[in-house]
């Protein structure tokens, strides 16, 4: 198989186009003066960097704990509520991080119900009488971000757990090894890492939560340099550091598992039946699964619902329905586009590319590591260049949509690629060779062999992307055409002034719009995994 062929070359070119805005950011970073650096190094940068790393460490660890534990429990054991948890554990994915940060502050701050209740019980007079953890802190950010980000880990890991062949568990039982540590964890590693990578990239690029909690991370630094010191290039330089942190992390992981094999030798396997357990374990597992669900879904939704019921929300049904339709349509179109691209890119990268092309495709999915607004500025600059060269005069609206979908692709390709790649690593390469020896073309092989085997992964990625675009704010805000509102921008016009009460109705609709697909997804995965096994 030559690595320069009709598959890899176009895909390489597409990758190059996708990363162009990132190159525009680099260009702007290189162009800029570096006179700010001594100032930044001696003042804020060490603090920003430390906070960023601590936040990544915290959110990464907690998301792994939430995600892997629940994924293992629901795919291995029979306990009350298990079949509900299976899909319900995904619900927090539909809650935007900026909304959860706000609801938690409302709940836990001095004037909130929790502290008010405590004061009443213990008869405390004011804040000097007692100590209460401040939710607007690094720990608070770790908690709220993990409780909405763990579904990435949960979803990908579970998809991997339910397809584990029974023979491996039998073998581990014979040798008296614990099935979780000896089999499940090592084999699910690509999926776990893919989920973790998404969580970390989301953490590193988050602006809403860290801004609201006033945590000084590199992202906050990016905006201070850009808007406070009027230095876009300085901001681009800091963003590039963020980018390289992510690229290094991902590369290390790739190197670490380069020579490992995650696929099964025999393709037809029976899957494990659910295990019966003691009542005590049932209760324990029930609680383990309930905690992340309460933290990431029940609490924020209750707070929002409370606002609506109290009449704080602006309820304009026709406006919200209009924006919901726009939101859902654009999310659908964009997520379909992204998954289609992702599938082709990952397949070509795996079977048809040389190292250079692989790196290009890999880099194309790193846009996720940039703060959304910076990425949007990168797109703006790139489109500006194109305009200078080609002078294409598209209709303003159509042009606006193409640009918006392009920007979503750049930002969320990582999710698509991550979930598809974790599926492809589990396909036995002999299957592909067999298909090719039987004279089938690469296209047919792709359609008849790889597509069905990664179907669940495509769905998983597609729904995650869909829900993410539904929530997406900074890119939509800057790149949209005139008079164009999505649910997220609609919520933002209030939330940006810390008036989330007014927008609580629309915020609930964002969550609601994400629920349908999430539940559908969970059903399909289950059906599909029982069918193939």
């Amino acid at each position, binding site marked *: 198989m030559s690595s320069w062929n009709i598959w890899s070359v176009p895909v390489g070119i597409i990758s190059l186009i996708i990363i162009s805005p990132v190159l525009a950011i680099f260009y702007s970073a290189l162009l800029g003066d570096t006179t700010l650096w001594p*100032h*930044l190094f001696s*003042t*804020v940068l060490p*603090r920003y960097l430390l906070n960023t790393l601590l936040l990544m460490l915290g959110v990464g660890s907690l998301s792994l704990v939430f995600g892997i534990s629940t994924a293992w429990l629901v795919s291995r054991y029979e306990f009350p509520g298990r079949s509900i948890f299976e899909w319900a554990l995904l619900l927090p994915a539909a809650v935007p991080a900026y909304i959860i940060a706000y609801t938690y502050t409302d709940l836990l701050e*001095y*004037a909130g119900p929790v502290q008010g209740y405590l004061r009443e019980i213990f008869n405390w007079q*004011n*804040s*000097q009488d007692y100590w209460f953890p401040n939710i*607007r802190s690094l720990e608070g950010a770790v908690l709220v971000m993990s409780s909405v980000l763990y579904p990435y880990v949960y979803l990908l890991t579970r998809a991997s757990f339910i397809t584990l062949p029974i023979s491996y568990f039998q073998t581990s039982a014979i040798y008296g090894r614990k099935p979780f540590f000896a089999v499940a964890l090592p084999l699910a590693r690509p999926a776990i890492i893919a989920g973790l990578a998404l969580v970390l990239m989301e953490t590193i690029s988050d602006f809403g939560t860290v801004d609201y*909690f*006033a945590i000084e991370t590199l992202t906050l630094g990016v905006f*201070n340099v*850009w*808007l*406070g*010191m*009027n*230095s876009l290039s300085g901001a681009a330089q800091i963003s590039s550091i963020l980018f390289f942190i992510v690229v290094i992390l991902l590369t290390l992981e790739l190197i670490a598992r380069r020579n490992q094999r995650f696929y099964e030798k025999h393709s037809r396997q029976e899957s494990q039946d659910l295990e019966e357990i003691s009542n005590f374990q049932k209760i324990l597992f029930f609680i383990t699964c309930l905690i992340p669900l309460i933290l990431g879904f029940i609490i924020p939704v209750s707070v929002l619902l409370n606002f609506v019921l109290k009449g*704080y929300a*602006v309820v304009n049904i026709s406006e919200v329905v209009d924006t919901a339709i*726009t939101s859902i*349509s*654009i999310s*659908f*179109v964009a997520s*379909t586009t992204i998954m289609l691209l992702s599938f082709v890119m990952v397949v070509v990268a795996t079977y048809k590319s040389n190292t250079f092309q692989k790196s290009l495709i890999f880099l194309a999915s790193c846009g996720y590591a940039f703060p959304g*607004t910076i990425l*949007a*500025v990168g797109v*703006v*600059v790139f*489109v*500006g260049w194109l*305009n*200078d060269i080609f002078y294409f*005069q598209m209709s*303003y*609206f*159509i042009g606006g*949509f193409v640009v918006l979908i392009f920007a979503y692709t750049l930002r969320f390709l990582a999710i698509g690629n991550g979930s598809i790649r974790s599926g492809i690593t589990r396909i036995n390469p002999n299957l592909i060779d067999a298909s090719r020896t039987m004279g089938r073309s690469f296209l047919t092989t792709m*359609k008849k062999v790889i597509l069905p085997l990664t179907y669940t992964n495509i769905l998983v990625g597609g729904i995650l992307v869909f829900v993410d675009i539904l929530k997406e704010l*900074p890119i939509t*805000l*800057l790149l*949209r*055409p*005139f*008079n*164009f509102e999505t649910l997220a*921008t609609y919520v933002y*016009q*209030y939330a*940006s*002034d*810390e*008036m989330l*009460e*007014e927008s609580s109705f629309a915020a609930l609709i964002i969550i609601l719009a994400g629920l349908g697909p999430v539940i559908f997804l969970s059903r399909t995965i289950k059906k599909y995994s029982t069918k193939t096994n």
Partner: protein
Amino acid sequence: MKNYFLKLLAIFCFIFCFVETVYAKSEVNVYSYRQPILIDPFFDEFTKTTGIKVNVLHAKKGLLERVISEGANTPADLVLTVDIARLSQFVQNDLLMEVSSDILNKNIPSHLRDSNNKWFALSKRARILAVSKDRVSNNSIKNIEDLADPKWRGKICTRPGSHDYNRSLLASIIAANGEEKAEEWASNLVLNLARKPEGNDRAQAKAVHEGVCDVAVMNTYYFGKMKFNEKNPEQKEWAKSINLIFTNQDNRGNHINVAGGGIVKYSQNKDNAIALLEFLTKPEAQVLYSKMNYEYPVNPNVEPSEELSSWGVFIEDQLPVERLAELAPTAQKIIDRVGW
């Protein structure tokens, strides 16, 4: 597969038809840093009187970069910002055109517009102190400089220093007292803070109400928004527990900042854009600014609303607002150094 493709195509078409609006002949396109809920009533009023349709794109960050990159193709006619720093960035990048309009010149005093008439202030706000009614006597603070006094140790609340409003306040102090004094002030202020800077201006007033601190730094209009908040009546209580102090009344006056706008150099609906800008400075619109948003009118012929006047008449810092923009980067560096 083919079926899927057709469906996809149908959805694409659907979306484009959905939002594709036919360009009316009489239109003006606005890029606005200001939130739609605050500015839409003005546009509705403008459309009602003139028949000119206003299209708005709102974003808090990046509109400058968008106009730069769109260049001569930009659909934007008018840019509206909420502070002077962003406005002067547009001027520095040569994106605004000179406008000669008698109405604008008459309605806006010269220190509130660009020397070349490239931008115009549309409303003013003062950055004031909100102090606890119970715990702080009204004459215990006279100047913004007093916030550095050790007697306020652990008693002051502000939002983060690197927010536009605080940066601009610090810039005004640099202009008045020099960089060194300003840095000394900022570092003492940080020592006096009751808690890590967090939240917005309203959250600081709330903290005073709750007893977390005694003195908060705040923009004037937040007071009105709290005092008359029907959606969230709890905020009325916050407003009740604070007094407003205008600072530096015996010397340079209280620091002010402006919201304003300018016409984009490449505007294709220049006349409509100027008409809109003029409209925003006319008495009927200026009254709206003070009635709805609790901002001070720039038009000297328009009295602030009764409510605004009841907060006190004050002397404002006469520093040309452009200086605030020039000094913003210096201010940000100080903020970084003192960790505000």
